[in-house]
Structures are given as C-alpha cells and as structure tokens.
C-alpha cells in the first residue's frame, strides 16, 4: 500500500497543493469540480502501479487562488510548468470532467509531453443537440441527483470532508465554483478544441458513464471521433462520476489501457 505524501510546489508564484503516491511511471491526475483534495480508492488503485501526482487546481482545494488566474491558457501553462518543475519530460495524463477538459487542451497543445491520455466524462466540446448541463443553475440539493445514477454513492466524497464546519465547506465550494465560472460560465466548452484535437495523437482512452446527465455520451463519441488514436469505454449503471460510482471498473479499464 503506497503512502500518500502531500506537498506544496510554487509554480510562477501559484502555491500548488499535490498528493503524491506510488512508484513507477509518472501519472498526472486532474480532478473535476467538487472533487479537489481527495484521495479515493480510485487514486489508491492507480498508485499501486504508477507514481500518481494529484494536484489541486489553482483556486481549488488547498492551492492558492490568484486573482489573475482566469483562463484555460492559464491552466495549460500552469500544468506544463508543473511538469517542468517536477522534471517530468512525459507522463500519462488522466482527467475527469473539468480536469478532463484541461487534459484534452494540454494534449492538443503539448502532445509530446503525454504518453497516454485518459479522458473521463470530460467537458470541453460542443456537440450540437447535446448541450452540457448548466451546473451553475443546479441547486445544491439537486446536484448529486444529476451527477450520480445512485446519489448514495456521493457519500464516499462526503466521508472525506470535515462536516463539522459546514460554513467553511460552503465557502470552499463557492471559491471553487467561482474559478470554474471564470473558465466555463460564458461558454462551457472551447469552440477551438474540436479542431485542435487532431494534434493529440497519443493512445487515448475515453471513459464515460452510460447515464451521464451532465456531459452526455454523445460527447464521449465526439472525443473518440476527433482524437486520432482513441478508444471508447462506456460504463453501465453509472452517471457523471465513474471514479466514485463505478470505481473498480473504471480503475480496471484505465490500468488495462495504461499497462498495454
């Protein structure tokens, strides 16, 4: 069982909080909204085979929240600089939801830095007729119902939060949603991404919950069509958060793909 080390690394004056665990080839994991600063069985399973770096995005978790940080370009440069600071010439890149969008962008700009790419329920694309759900318009009560096929599974996340200070959690959530709004309020996707994905030539796995009500499987298919070397895995009885809702199956799919 790998021990998890926590570190703060300064990247162009942005204090970035990371959880690091495991041995082997480096794997950078980029989290989704509401899922910062977590170490779930999913992360642990990956860390049994790879050296997992799981940073909190700027504005999320324990990372700092610079005023000027407000665009996808800022995220792309931030993570490429993180790789430089960690002295990692190339990595396996795994991203979920918002983190999946960032991962797809990094892959289209810096394909040489990525050995294999895994996109899980990733945002970022516009698919005509299948708009991404406006998460900012969902009430906190409704959010787990829409994100999960079985909302009870959301308890796994709550169990890792300090529920003794609800106000602190609300403010943390507000801060993270504010950073997400900076990226995705006006447009929950990047119209340029579809054209750019032709550059992401690395072997790619697209993983999606069959009943994803945030980003529908039409987006999974679109990613698969646009990324030259991609294959698709759809998970049954699963909503937008496969890493929690079908953790074991998701992990097995990813490990099988990465180990090939």
């Amino acid at each position: 069982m790998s021990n998890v080390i926590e570190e703060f690394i300064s990247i162009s004056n942005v204090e970035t909080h990371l959880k690091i665990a495991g041995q082997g080839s480096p794997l950078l994991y980029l989290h989704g909204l509401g899922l910062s600063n977590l170490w779930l069985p999913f992360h642990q399973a990956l860390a049994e085979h790879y050296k997992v770096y799981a940073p909190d995005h700027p504005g999320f978790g324990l990372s700092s929240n610079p005023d000027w940080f407000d665009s996808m370009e800022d995220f792309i440069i931030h993570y490429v600089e993180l790789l430089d600071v960690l002295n990692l010439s190339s990595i396996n890149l795994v991203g979920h939801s918002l983190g999946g969008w960032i991962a797809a962008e990094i892959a289209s700009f810096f394909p040489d830095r990525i050995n294999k790419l895994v996109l899980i329920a990733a945002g970022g694309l516009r698919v005509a007729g299948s708009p991404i759900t406006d998460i900012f318009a969902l009430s906190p009560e409704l959010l787990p119902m829409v994100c999960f096929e079985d909302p009870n599974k959301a308890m796994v996340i709550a169990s890792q939060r300090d529920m003794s200070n609800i106000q602190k959690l609300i403010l943390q959530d507000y801060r993270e949603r504010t950073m997400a709004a900076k990226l995705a309020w006006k447009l929950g996707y990047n119209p340029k991404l579809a054209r750019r994905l032709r550059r992401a030539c690395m072997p790619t796995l697209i993983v999606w919950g069959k009943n994803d009500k945030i980003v529908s499987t039409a987006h999974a298919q679109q990613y698969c069509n646009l990324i030259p070397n991609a294959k698709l895995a759809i998970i049954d009885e699963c909503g937008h958060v496969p890493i929690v809702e079908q953790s074991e199956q998701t992990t097995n799919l990813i490990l099988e793909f990465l180990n090939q």
Partner: protein
Amino acid sequence: MTKKMEFYYFHLMPYPYLPPDFHKQYDSTWITLPNSLYDPEKGHKLYNRYIDELVKAAELGWDGVCVNEHHQTAYGTMPSPNIIAAMLVHRIQKAKIAIVGNALPLHDDPLRVAEEIAMLDVISGGRIISGFVRGTGMEYFSYNINPAHSRDRFYEAHDLIIQAWTKAGPFAFEGQHYNYRYVNIWPRPLQKPHPPIWLPGTGSLETIEFAAKHRYPFMMVFSPQTYQRKAYALYRQIAEEKFGYQAQPNQLAFAIPTFVAETDEIARKEAEPHVMWLFHKGLHVPQHFNFPPGYVTEKSLASLLGSGIKPFHKLTFQELIDQGYIIVGSPATVIEKLSIYTEEMKAGILIGGAHAGDMPEDLVNKNMEMFAKEVMPHFH
C-alpha cells in the same frame, strides 16, 4: 430651506398576472419562468397605466420618479429603463427622472449607457439622476455574463462612463474588460460635472466604501432596518475616517415600499395581498440563482451565511413590517416611522411609491393621493 426628506416615486412595473398555482408549478419568478405566461395585450395596458402613475406622482409633488433595469422576470418588466425614462422626460416637466439604475456589468458596451444618459440629460434640461447597479445574481444567468467578473466590470464601466462624460474626447480607454480606441460621445451631458450618480445596494462593505469614496448617495434596497442602520453608520465612518468628510442626509437613501390609509388597520388590510405578491411571488427565487459564483466576495457570503437573514419569499407580512422592510399605516404611523429616518438615522432620501405587486389602479391612486396630501408636507 432644505427639505427634511426628498421623495422619489419608484416603480418596478411588474407583470402581476401569474397563475393561481404559480408556487406549485414554478420554482422561480426569474430566469426560467416561461414567457408564455406573458400576455402582450395585458402588457400594453400595464405599461401605459404604470407610466401614467409615474406622471401622476410628479404632478402630486414627488421630487422625482425612479425606474430600473431587470431582465427576464415578472418582477419588473423594464429591461431597458432608459426607454421608459425617455418617455417620462417628455411627460414630466419639473421632477427629476432617476434611473436606479443601469446594470453596468451586464452590458458589453457601457459606452452606450454613457451616450443614452447624456441624451436624456440634454433633452430633459439636466433632470437625470443616473444610478449604477451590478444587477441581481439572476441577471448573470439571464444575460450570460460571468458573475466572477461582475465587480471588476462594474468599476471599470463606471470609470469609463465618468471619463466619457467629463474628459475632452477623443481619447482612448484601455481596461481589462472594456477597450475603446475612440471615446468621444456626442452629446455630452448637460449637468456639470455630470448627472448625479446614485448607488443602490444591499449594504456590502465594497459598495458602501465605493459610494463614500465618490460621495455618491447610497440607496439601501429592501433590507431590515437593523441592516440599514449598520450600512449608514459604515458610510459615515468610512467618509470621516478614510476620506475626511461628514456624510450628509442627502447621501443616505432608502428604498422602502410605503402604504398609507385612513387607519393602521385599513392600511394593513389594503396593502397585505399586494405586498405579499412583491415578496412572495416577485422575489420567489432559489438561493443559488441569487448568488452565482463570484457575484459576491467570500467575505460578504460568509457574513450573509452568519446573518440568519431569511430569504424574501419566506418573510411574513408581520415580519416585513416589524423588521422595517416596508412601512404601512395611518398617516400618523407613517410619519412616525419615516421620522426615525430623518431624526435618528439622518437619512434624507425616500425611494418609496404607492404601487406594489398586483395592486389595482384605484388603490394605487388612493394611496398615492393620501401620501402626497397627508405625509409629504410633514417633511417639507
């Protein structure tokens, strides 16, 4: 002699014809309330009636009339307050026309606001008051403007408009959100240095400090009296300690629906259903629509969470009266309650009005006439 209080008649121009099962059917009067519920034939009559009410208020002696901007809601049907102001400028000869206000961050081209206010000011002979607001949280959904940039856009649009009104053009304006190579508006406003600016708000530290810094009247909107007192105290303190002057009553304004009738009992009976339309239907909004991410600072959100303040649509009629959101009663009661503002709180501008929610025309007229005749003279 200076008046103890200036009176402004405020209209929201609501669309009151919501279905009886409204609360069962819809979770919000804003953003998502289907516009199939809007009947333009009824709207035609409403607009004309509401404009007549504002004209009548000016004739009855109100110092000014107020319009404001809201989008995609039955709460208020003035997406462009400047259009209504343009009509009022011609029908009202002496009173001020206060636009409280244009929601600056919602507009990608705030130079248009500078131009329209300047036009109105020139046409009206300098009778325009120009309020600037950020708009409600809901309007960031309706206009798809990023709430995380709301405050920055507000400050920047404010600076642009003031410069456009006061600085000789053409000049360039380079901001983070707004950029113009040529700022050179025709016409320039008539009032010097520019039309008065009012800042309506709910009492955040940031807004009060901004108002005190520029000596703009701060207009407290729909809030309990304890909050109004705190906001005025803060304004005075910041004015004195940070900017070295004493805030005057004409810098402290309050927007409070007021209703007067022969007795307290009659006033309550007449006002209640229509006031409750305003707070329970007009302001029926889920919290997450009110506070989209980044719309308020974390500090403001923290103080709101700790305040225990109820959402508008959960307040009872009695709570609205007791907490000072509204003033309802006989002329003597209304005078007594307003005197708290002039005597204790040293606030000198009432943004009131006789209309609320679905109040019928005859009741509005009665309320308006009685207020003008029996309440207003007391403060002259």
